[in-house]
């Protein structure tokens, strides 16, 4: 046994030596292995997007083996009886075959679709985390902008992806895209003709979207993700403020083995969840929608969730059309569809620069801010979130109206009014909450924790016992500065009162070794 171990050790050393001779790895490898990463659960949100993307590449490659991006009209002769004999495009036919006649094809299609939804959802949540903690501030503005570009690449990559099967729903999406394109002043009809190779839907758009979907955009996304992660690595991750943490250091654990093992475990976890979802939860059952026909649509035609806010805005926008006869028309869809989308791209891209300009804060920031400590930014963020949510709800307002027996027109009007009023209310309420939280932090720092223990003094006055966080002066006040750390708000946050009894489902009676149970009794009965 021992001898074998020795051999493998020297083998490893030998292999390392050979590699180092050629690539001079000893120093860079050591720096990489030793690199310290800060730790917090919210730093893993972006990883979910990365891991979903890897799965998207894998499952997408499988799908591409069987999918035929052709709009040639064929007659369906596959095994799915309800569509037999129906005229459809080759693309839809092969997507049906993928679902019915390729072993595991349906599983892969659903895996691909669920991974997309998780990819986009995790990008959004990751973006909120970066925004609300101020992680986009200098020196990281570039990476924020790359992230925004990645979101929009993902947005169109997803839209093109669900347009490919050429089923009833995907054709409806393309039709709306055509209407939006045509609304652009001067170039509209030309842009639409270029996109569809003439009149919508034409015979070429699927193959054009296909090469973009499987080659151009994945390449761009992959390249940008590489730069995105490379910059996080080179600029070193931000960290939450806390004991010993400054703008000039990183407190955490090493890349190897700790960080990498947790990442691998987390990646497999995400994949496991997506794999189970792909098998158990149906998504996009294209065989129920039929081939795309311009004269057919079903009610409850909703895009994927990340497109829904845009669809909602298009639904809510009033019928305002600008006409300068005889030859100029600006259709209403231009405003939410083209201008709205343009603003949704540009405003987030420019936000770091705007904040720098208005706050005149030009320093480097490696410590994160708690959202409450920057009430203005947090309220602005919540405002945008509320706007977005109303857009998403309105994107499905027909479904809400139907399910809850509400008038459809009432839903539309609620959306229109809500879109204007709710963000303002959200801004105000969030601002007040932030200020309240700030104040409470300082209160606790000055007077101590609320223990929940009520006492009565000899005069009959009731008062609550406070646990000071430091040695108090003669008035019971503590002079503690707020420094951006989490302020403990409960006794068990400062190590007091752990549960006297262990056990989750049932009590495990164990005499505590350090007399904690007695201390708890003492505190609760007010002797302490």
């Amino acid at each position: 046994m021992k001898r074998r171990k020795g051999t493998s050790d020297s083998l490893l050393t030998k292999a390392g030596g050979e590699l180092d001779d050629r690539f001079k790895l000893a120093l860079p490898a050591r720096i990489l292995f030793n690199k310290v990463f800060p730790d917090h659960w919210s730093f893993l949100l972006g990883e979910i997007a990365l891991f979903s993307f890897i799965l998207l590449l894998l499952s997408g490659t499988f799908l591409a083996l069987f999918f035929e991006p052709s709009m040639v009209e064929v007659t369906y002769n596959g095994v799915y009886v309800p569509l037999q004999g129906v005229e459809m495009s080759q693309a839809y036919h092969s997507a049906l075959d993928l679902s019915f006649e390729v072993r595991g094809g349906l599983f892969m299609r659903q895996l691909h679709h669920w991974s997309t939804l998780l990819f986009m959802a995790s990008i959004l949540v990751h973006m909120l985390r970066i925004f609300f903690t101020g992680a986009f501030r200098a020196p990281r503005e570039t990476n924020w902008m790359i992230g925004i570009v990645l979101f929009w690449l993902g947005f169109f990559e997803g839209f093109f992806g669900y347009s490919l099967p050429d089923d009833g729903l995907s054709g409806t999406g393309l039709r709306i895209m055509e209407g939006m394109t045509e609304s652009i002043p001067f170039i509209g009809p030309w842009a639409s003709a270029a996109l569809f190779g003439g009149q919508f839907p034409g015979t070429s758009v699927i193959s054009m979207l296909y090469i973009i979907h499987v080659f151009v955009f994945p390449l761009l996304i992959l390249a940008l993700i590489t730069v995105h992660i490379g910059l996080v690595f080179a600029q070193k991750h931000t960290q939450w403020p806390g004991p010993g943490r400054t703008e000039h250091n990183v407190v955490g654990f090493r890349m190897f083995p700790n960080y990498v093992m947790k990442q691998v475990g987390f990646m497999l976890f995400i994949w496991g969840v997506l794999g189970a979802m792909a098998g158990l939860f149906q998504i996009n059952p294209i065989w129920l929608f039929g081939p795309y026909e311009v004269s057919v649509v079903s009610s409850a035609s909703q895009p994927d969730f990340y497109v829904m806010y845009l669809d909602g805005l298009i639904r809510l926008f009033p019928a305002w059309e600008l006409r300068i006869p005889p030859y100029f028309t600006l259709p209403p869809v231009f405003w939410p569809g083209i201008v709205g989308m343009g603003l949704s791209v540009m405003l987030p891209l420019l936000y770091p620069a705007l904040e720098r300009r208005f706050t005149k804060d030009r320093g480097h920031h490696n410590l994160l801010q708690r959202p409450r400590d920057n009430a203005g930014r947090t309220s602005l963020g919540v405002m945008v979130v509320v706007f977005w949510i109303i857009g998403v709800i309105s994107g499905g307002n027909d479904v809400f109206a139907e399910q809850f027996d509400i008038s459809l027109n009432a839903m539309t009007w609620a959306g229109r009014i809500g879109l204007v009023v709710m963000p303002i209310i959200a801004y105000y309420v969030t601002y007040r909450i932030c200020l309240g939280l700030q104040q409470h932090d300082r209160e606790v720092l000055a007077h101590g924790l609320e223990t929940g223990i009520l006492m009565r003094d000899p005069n009959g006055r009731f008062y609550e016992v406070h646990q000071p966080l430091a040695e108090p002066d003669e008035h019971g006040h503590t002079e503690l500065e707020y420094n951006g750390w989490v302020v403990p708000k409960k006794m068990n946050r400062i190590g007091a009162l752990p549960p006297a009894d262990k056990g989750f489902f049932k009590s495990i009676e164990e005499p505590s070794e350090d007399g904690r149970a007695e201390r708890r009794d003492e505190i609760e009965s007010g002797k302490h």
Partner: protein
Amino acid sequence: MSAHNDSNPPEPVDLSNPKLSRFEVYKEGLRRDDIEIIHYEPRFAKPGTKAEKRMERIVSGLFLFSGLFATAFVAAYIWWPWEYEGAATWRDLQTWYTPVLGTTLGLSLLFFAVGVLTWAKKLLPVEELIQDRHDGGSSSDDRKIAEATVDNMVEDMGLKRRPFLVKAALLGAAPLGLAAIAPLGALIKDPGDMLTVTGWNAEKHNDGEPIRFMMKDGALVRPDMVSVGGQITVYPAIDHGATNQHPTSPVLLIHLRDADAEVLRGNLYPMYQDVDALWGNFVAYSKICTHVGCPTSLYEQQSQRLLCPCHQSQFNVVDNAAPVFGPATRHLPMLPFTVDEEGFFIAKSDFLVPPGPAFWNRPSLPEEDEK
């Protein structure tokens, strides 16, 4: 060097000292990377205790379970009956193929994930380290040298001394850039009349002969085929008339009740009065929404409204299908039609205004702006 700590930075060690332990050599690496250990201790104070063995067994078990489920996945992928055989109940094994794949693969990945995570969280040493961030730009020396290098490069190339050369290079490169994207011009197509002329244009599609109405299956349409209050979708009876090759042609043919038809006749725009667009109590509207082009396929007979399910534009059937709610701004164009001597519906002409979504150079007729 390291500004992160008030305490004295660790001293460099002499690597040639043969008495150095492995950990001391390792710590020297950390020191050189500006890393300091704040806290580092094995997860289990005594190696080989019962608790540690137990944790090892748990993690091993998780990995083995993962392998088991992965094997089950491969086996199910190969041997589980999967071929679709039409309508089936839950008792038929093939309906469970996809769920079985998902469950086995998902569990396999989850077991491995929990195994790795448990290994990292329960067996790796407890550690906290602190590393210098070296935030900000390079040292002033480095900057100075880089600046001089770039300046030297500029000088070597003579970019400042030879301004004409620079301009000539730019003037040459700009068309080259244009040349790189010019081939995309192959995509440009003249939209021509695609947005204004539909499959109902007799000159273009039927040698000037009037075009009949047909249904999806090609059957020609007669008045007795639509009952009072009913509606059907009709297409131009030309080659591929009912396919996506004629995307703006689908028409909703509605047989109105007497009273409704009377109201509509009273409301009719002058351009439709002029061509006598109705036939009896029948009216034919373009089915393509004037907002962004979805089919307005929900006909509410009671309120006489057409609703587009995409963005909820609503059109009043008894008022020229003018928009009454939602984002659409224009009425659904009416197709003027009549019945030929054989009793089939025929179109009198193409739509009077372009159907479908608006575009910037869409010709508008004054009648549209009246309401």
